């Protein structure tokens, strides 16, 4: 009566195509062992880790997802990728990324084109510019949040600014820019 859907099941002996994202557990079960390890290696290669003992001072640019558990001072730029600051990570830098997940400490301004997510135990001292911001219960945040409306995003490109505390960026902005007459 019930017919199993075998459309996604690869033919026996044929390796499954390498997925771009980590496969779901159910899919993994049906994937042969050798290609599975290939997939894992591929994922491990795509996500770079900066370990606890690593200290970087300067500018960090990248074109892949990055997890930081160490210390970084300066500037981090991952325009189209996800930056994760692990529980041991300590960042004293201006951060620019597609998406930023904070579980450690960030002291500096964070600009994300998609989302900033401060998880429980994460701390941000600085200004956030992102269309979506999530701050979990138990997270620490001090600074300003600028959630630009979709229509306003294109007109208000954020310029990279130096590292600094929460008030720096807000003080630099001229008052007139904020207190314009209503345009809506």
């Amino acid at each position, binding site marked *: 009566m019930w017919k199993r859907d075998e459309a996604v099941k690869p033919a026996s002996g044929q390796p499954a195509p390498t997925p771009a994202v980590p496969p779901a557990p159910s899919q993994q079960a049906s994937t042969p062992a050798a290609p599975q390890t290939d997939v894992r290696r591929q994922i491990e290669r795509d996500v770079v880790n900066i370990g606890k003992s690593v200290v970087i001072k300067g500018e960090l640019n990248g074109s892949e997802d990055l997890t930081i558990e160490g210390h970084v001072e300066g500037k981090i730029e991952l325009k189209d990728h996800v930056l994760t600051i692990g529980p041991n990570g300590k960042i004293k830098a201006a951060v620019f990324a597609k998406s930023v997940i904070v579980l450690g400490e960030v002291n500096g301004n964070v600009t994300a084109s998609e989302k900033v997510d401060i998880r429980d135990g994460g701390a941000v001292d600085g200004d956030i510019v992102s269309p979506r911001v999530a701050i979990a219960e138990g997270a620490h945040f001090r600074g*300003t949040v600028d959630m630009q409306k979709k229509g306003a995003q294109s007109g208000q490109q954020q310029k990279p600014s130096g590292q600094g505390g929460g*008030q720096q960026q807000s003080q630099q902005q001229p008052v007139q820019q904020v207190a314009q007459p209503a345009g809506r």
Partner: protein
Amino acid sequence: MALSDLFSRRRKEPDSDAATDAGAADSPVHPTKALAKFLASLASRTQPRLLDLGPVVGSNVTFFGEQLGCKILVEDLYKDIDRHVREGKIQELPAFFAKRFPQDAGTVDGILCWDVFDYLDKAAATPLAQQLVRILRPEGALLALFSTAEPAAGAAATYTKHMVVDQSSLQHRPYPAARGKQRPVLNRDIQRMFEPLRITEQFLLKTNLREVLFRKPADTADTSPAVPAPER
């Protein structure tokens, strides 16, 4: 509808004592009348700057960001009060508040004070109010909640996270505090403290809260410079 139905409904309503259940996800939701007016006063501005004096609440940041497209500045004064109490420096609070805000005069469009003034005595409340008046731009709005009831003797000291459910309701989530609420501030003292702001709306709620919405008159020109940034 039978009379017994009314009583059974009444029993189902959240008890005010339940509010002391710190951090409960099912904390009571209370109506607010002033919040909608506060939002309306800011809605006419493009990307207004909002100063929130309460603890950081992620859902509030999202709410105000999405509703107003505003720039939100969070300055948790409850944490400052707690720190001063724990360090035994409560007498230094007035001087601390006088230098607390590095913003230039007239640069903030809206201020959410929540109930922070309930935890301050007059000596500390006055410089805080003066600083808020200074940084509020002309025609800007300030929303503050004041308790009208005497603090309950023997009750555990709690602050309250005011989580915005929607424009007309707030969820009150208490959490432990080092200092309890002080004596209620009288109406005339509220007016004097915030001069030259004008009270545009005032609501006395059944929850013993007075919601006060202030407006800074358009002709108020304050050009006093910003105080130096405090140490973090």
